[in-house]
């Protein structure tokens, strides 16, 4: 960057900082309603932000010194809004430009310095946005996997008996996940019988039935038995009227009936203490 600007910035650092902090606080007051906790606690961050900018101006471009990048990452990870960073940078641009305007210099010189400032700041802004969208994408993909795994848990209930309660609609992607969780669970818990409970599945159409039949077939290949439970009256009606053949493996209306059946298969009995 032009030596003149760097020199001016360094000489006027205190004023710049005060102006910058003032505007940043104005912005924060306006936004505080939506981000109250994180923004209130960010005074130290403000100081750090400004110091890093000054440091950055003195050491030139962003790629040579990773500290700004690191700072952005850290800020975004603590849950401060992206707006805080973009506003902070815009405000920095504004206070520096104000300083230049007040310095009463030639129009041409001023215009050149303006451009200098822009070409210094714009890459930083781009970088911030890029960083934040990456973080966001990563978060979304992590949450998506977590959600998918939560959506089809296999629960070992008794010795060699597990239950998989299915809740919500079943599409092809979820069906694949259900199948994998089911089979891995069968191996992990050595389940001789697994009950798939479809009480919470709103619609059982040909596609869903197909996925369930496939899952039951795969469970059988492993050497375990699959019992389909939670067949509500309307589901029985659709299954039959769609001509879906579920006769190849046992089905029961309720989880309780299925469990009785499972205990029988595994030669177990529930003994009451009364």
């Amino acid at each position: 960057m032009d030596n003149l600007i760097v020199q001016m910035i360094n000489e006027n650092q205190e004023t710049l900082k005060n102006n910058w902090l003032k505007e940043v606080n104005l912005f924060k007051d306006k936004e505080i309603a939506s981000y109250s906790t994180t923004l209130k606690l960010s005074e130290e961050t403000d100081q750090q932000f400004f110091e890093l900018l000054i440091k950055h101006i003195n050491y030139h471009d962003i790629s040579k010194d990773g500290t700004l990048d690191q700072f952005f990452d850290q800020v975004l990870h603590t849950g401060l809004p992206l707006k805080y960073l973009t506003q902070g940078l815009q405000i920095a641009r504004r206070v520096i430009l104000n300083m230049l305007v007040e310095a009463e210099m030639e129009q041409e010189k001023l215009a050149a310095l303006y451009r200098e400032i822009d070409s210094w700041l714009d890459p930083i802004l781009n970088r911030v946005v890029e960083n934040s969208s990456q973080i966001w994408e990563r978060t979304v993909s992590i949450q998506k996997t977590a959600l998918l795994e939560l959506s089809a848990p296999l629960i070992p209930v008794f010795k060699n008996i597990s239950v998989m309660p299915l809740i919500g609609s079943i599409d092809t992607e979820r069906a694949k996940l259900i199948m994998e969780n089911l089979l891995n669970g069968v191996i992990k818990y050595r389940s001789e019988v697994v009950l798939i409970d479809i009480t919470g599945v709103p619609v059982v159409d040909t596609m869903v039935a197909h996925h369930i039949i496939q899952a039951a077939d795969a469970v059988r290949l492993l050497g375990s038995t699959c019992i389909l439970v939670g067949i509500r009256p309307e589901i029985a009606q659709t299954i039959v009227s769609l001509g879906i053949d579920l006769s190849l493996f046992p089905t029961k209306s309720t989880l309780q009936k299925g469990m009785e059946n499972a205990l029988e298969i595994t030669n177990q009995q529930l003994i009451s203490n009364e």
Partner: protein
Amino acid sequence: MRIPILKLHEYLLITIQVEMDDQTALQFQEDLLNKIHDTGAKGVVIDLTSVDMIDSFIAKVLGDVVRMSKLMGAQVVLTGIQPAVAITLIDLGISMREVSTALDLEQGLDKLRLELEG
């Protein structure tokens, strides 16, 4: 390559531990049928725990072996099919519904005993 076949009382036990090429699979089919004939075995357990791939050819050989053994009076149980293998079989459209299965060798033997001795 030949897959070893062990005899345990009136049962035959096979643990497949090699990557099966077509010749090995067909040779195994022949060896097993001969062994059933020679020993009069009533039950067979084929353990597939170490098998990491079954394509339609091997699936056909296995299905055939089960049906042929049955013709000769021996029940076959397949054990230890891995989740990934089961999923690919289902993708291939091969569900082997007529074949008896169990989680592991021990349970396979239990199953045979139950089926044969009532």
